[in-house]
């Protein structure tokens, strides 16, 4: 049954079961992903999916349930599940439902032209990626990823207070990864891109970058342990930002899980750093006119010239702090409870091109990849210790590739230590949520473990 009909049924059944306010958050999506291996389509996955998240108040507390099939069994399961869960809640947090607003911003994130790109054209593109990667360097031994995907999704939210909004978004992503082999040594390099304009997908350019990077890492060696001045490439900065994004959440602050507690209005970063959350970005991967609670979204500086301006709020945390929601309520999926997350979240770019940054670095390390951010970084303390590789820079020039090192430091210190910001802002591909962006930047020092 249609989601609007289903909503009516659930609300009806909920009223009969004694539930108070109720809310439906539904997502319907269409996906296609294609991977080519040795000139053949190796994987072709298509899906049409839907899901409904339900939350309801019973005896003052909120319970959740979700289902993926919109049938009578699910109506019953959602109502009974949410009711049972409401009854075990101890938390005294006051949860408010949103009745809807007069005005919502206009946001463009659906490109009908992208939808028209045929599966055949996508297969051709993926084949091209593999071909171009092999063509880029004769030492390419394997192209282990040549993939492209498309996704469109519609989010729909409605509650018993009268809120009813929906929004559609689409986008495509691509990933290429190649192995370059020389004298029994293997190095890999990869590139990804997310966009909802098909013209942004240039197979040759992407393959060349991936292969070029792998080749540039051949004969890498470790460096002497010690402190180094470091240039973090834009994608590494992005990884840091994504890993530590939770420290800006008011929820983490209120629960004592963010060291930014009590720091509003203080200088928490170098004056060069401005951090923006922009849900209205045209064609952004996380652009949306309303958040996970139906609140209208808006653009704001989270850090302006080094000063912490705001935490990210949903209705619950805003009420607790006596402020307005910043429109950052999130539903990671229809299965998730309401949390907080940034939308299109990026560090404002500076003036210097990448080459100029390398010259500016003088001597030090360029880090182009870090590994293990999910385990080697602690968002609570800000401490990190991560596997890394990149290049050694001497006299403003790349001297040689470096691998088998770790970099260690603290995220909050790193924000203070920013000495220069590049102009090369780029948003992430899939796996990075696509919604985090950063330029490359130079930091005063990080502890490097090597030899």
């Amino acid at each position, binding site marked *: 049954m249609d989601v609007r009909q289903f909503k009516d049924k659930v609300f009806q059944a909920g009223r009969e079961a004694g539930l108070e306010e109720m809310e439906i958050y539904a997502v319907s999506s269409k996906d296609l992903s294609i991977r080519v291996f040795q000139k053949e*389509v190796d994987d*072709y*996955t*298509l*899906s*049409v*999916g*839907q899901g409904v998240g339900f939350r309801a108040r019973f005896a003052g507390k909120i319970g*959740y*349930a*979700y*289902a*993926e*099939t919109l049938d009578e069994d*699910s109506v019953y*399961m959602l109502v009974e*599940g949410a009711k*049972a*869960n*409401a*009854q*075990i*809640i*101890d*938390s005294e*947090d006051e949860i408010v439902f949103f009745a809807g607003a007069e005005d919502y911003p206009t946001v463009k994130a659906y490109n009908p032209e992208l939808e028209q790109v045929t*599966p055949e054209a996508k297969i051709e593109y993926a084949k091209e990626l593999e071909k171009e990667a092999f063509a880029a360097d004769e030492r390419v*031994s*394997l192209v*282990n990823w040549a993939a492209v995907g498309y996704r469109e999704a519609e989010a729909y939210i409605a509650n018993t207070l009268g809120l009813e909004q929906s929004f559609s978004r689409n986008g495509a992503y691509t990933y290429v990864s190649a*192995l370059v082999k020389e004298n029994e040594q*293997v190095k*890999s390099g990869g590139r990804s891109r997310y966009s909802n304009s098909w013209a942004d997908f240039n197979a040759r350019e992407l393959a060349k970058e991936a292969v070029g990077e792998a080749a540039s890492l051949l004969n890498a060696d470790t460096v002497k*342990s*010690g402190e180094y001045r470091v240039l973090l490439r834009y994608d590494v900065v992005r990884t840091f930002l994504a890993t530590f994004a939770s420290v800006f959440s008011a929820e983490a602050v209120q629960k*004592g*899980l963010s060291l930014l507690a009590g720091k509003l209005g203080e200088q928490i970063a170098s004056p060069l750093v401005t951090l923006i959350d922009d849900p209205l970005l045209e064609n952004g991967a996380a652009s949306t006119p309303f958040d996970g609670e139906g609140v209208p979204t808006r653009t704001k500086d989270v850090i302006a010239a080094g000063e912490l301006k705001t935490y990210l709020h949903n209705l619950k945390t805003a009420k607790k702090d006596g402020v307005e929601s910043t429109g950052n309520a999130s539903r990671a999926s229809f*299965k998730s*409870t309401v949390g907080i997350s940034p939308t299109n979240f990026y560090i404002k770019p500076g003036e210097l091109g990448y080459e100029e940054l390398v010259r500016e670095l003088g001597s030090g390390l360029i880090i182009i990849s870090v*590994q*293990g951010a*999910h*385990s*080697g970084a*602690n968002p*609570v*303390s800000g*401490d990190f*210790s*991560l*596997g890394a590789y990149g290049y050694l820079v001497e006299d403003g020039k790349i001297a040689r590739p470096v691998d*088998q*090192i*770790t970099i*260690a*430091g603290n995220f909050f210190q790193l924000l203070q230590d920013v000495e220069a910001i590049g102009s090369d802002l780029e948003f992430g591909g899939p796996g990075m949520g696509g919604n985090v962006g950063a330029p490359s930047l130079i930091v005063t020092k990080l*502890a490097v*473990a*090597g*030899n």
Partner: protein
Amino acid sequence: MLSERIVTDVLLAALSTGGDFAEIFMEDTYNTSISMIDGKVEQGVNGRDYGVGIRIYQGFRSVYAYTNNTSRENLMKVALEAAAALAGSRQVQSIVLNRMCVEKFNPVRLEPQRVGQKEKVEVMKRAHNAAANFHEQISQVAITYLDVDQSVFIANSEGLMVDDRRIRTRLGINAVASKGNEKQSAFRGPGRHMGFELYEQIDVEEIARDAAQSAVTMVNADYAPSGKYPVIIDNEFGGVIFHEACGHGLEATSVAKGASVFAGKLGQKVASEIVTAVDDGSIPNAWGSQNIDDEGFKTRRNVLIENGILKGYMIDRLNGRRMGMEPTGNSRRQSYKYAPTSRMTNTFICAGESTKEEIIANTEYALFARRMGGGSVNPATGEFNFAVAEGYIVRNGKIEKPVRGATLIGKGSDVLLKIDMVGSNLATGQGMCGSLSGSIPADVGQPTIRVTEMTVGGRKEAE
């Protein structure tokens, strides 16, 4: 779940454009998750995951499609849409389904769906209290409760028709210790392929106190010295090192494409001769066990490395085709939303001869990683990284002091060759492993082992 008539029709529709094999995977899963912070239940979610995945092969090509709508009409439509990605004429004319019975070796006594939410919360409170009252430096305790009841139905064009039910239960305990501005957290996550009777078999309080102990020890610890030196990795969750650094490279997913350092090395020495390693999905009630894998093959014990020699890989049907080898019962997927591929189940280094005490007593200087955090690996190069969640410095045969913030990096193939002592105290720990076919429960394990040299990353200069 689906009638034989519908299954046959959908499989034949999937094979209409020249596919040589088709499969239906249907799932109806009920799950519960409850989270508690500082002794208060914050959230409870009940969910139902439901859908069908249809897979078609044509030689080495694979097409996958999934949907939540399981009406005959929609399944036929999805099967034909998937088939449209292939081009050719029909090869398979008819299908005769044979229902297969599987031996259920993972008995479940207390189905979680029949246990009330309040009883589940009671277990959480026990864990919370034990951790919170352990020490004054414990500043926060977060407990998560999970249970999953997955019913699957698998049928394919070779006539297989089988169903299975997997019930899993797990408790997550996260203890945070604070000292001034500093915080350190420690996690324990006991889980089994069984029902609510898990909580009669494990000592929830003791596990919670162990987490609290770990967090308190680490918040009071100095930073680990960086450099290259010997590392002793303790048993149980320490096996994550083998899982990440070697296990992923032994999955057919990487081997079949030559994207693994272990490709083409069967019969060769890849590890020190005191190392034997196994993947075994048939251990009753273990976290990563299943009666059958997600392609319907029986799970079994697969020897990966025996006395240092590479003996076998973990192989799914499609990669088995590519490699010309038989599947090994390792095909797994998070849900119907993923095509299955070769994955680990319960993977561990087998017990050796030394005792843990002997290993420590015989070591002049080393990092003793009592508890590993997570890690990741690039299977193509074997380069890995791990966080050490709880570490100590061993000096002159004795544990000297706790250290924190250490990271281990290296290449799996190097580390395997550098293992020079293997303990007798094999134990396993539970994890969620993320890869191509989603996030799945997997046991890691090993006895205490010693590695002659690893690169230890940390914030402090070498001693």
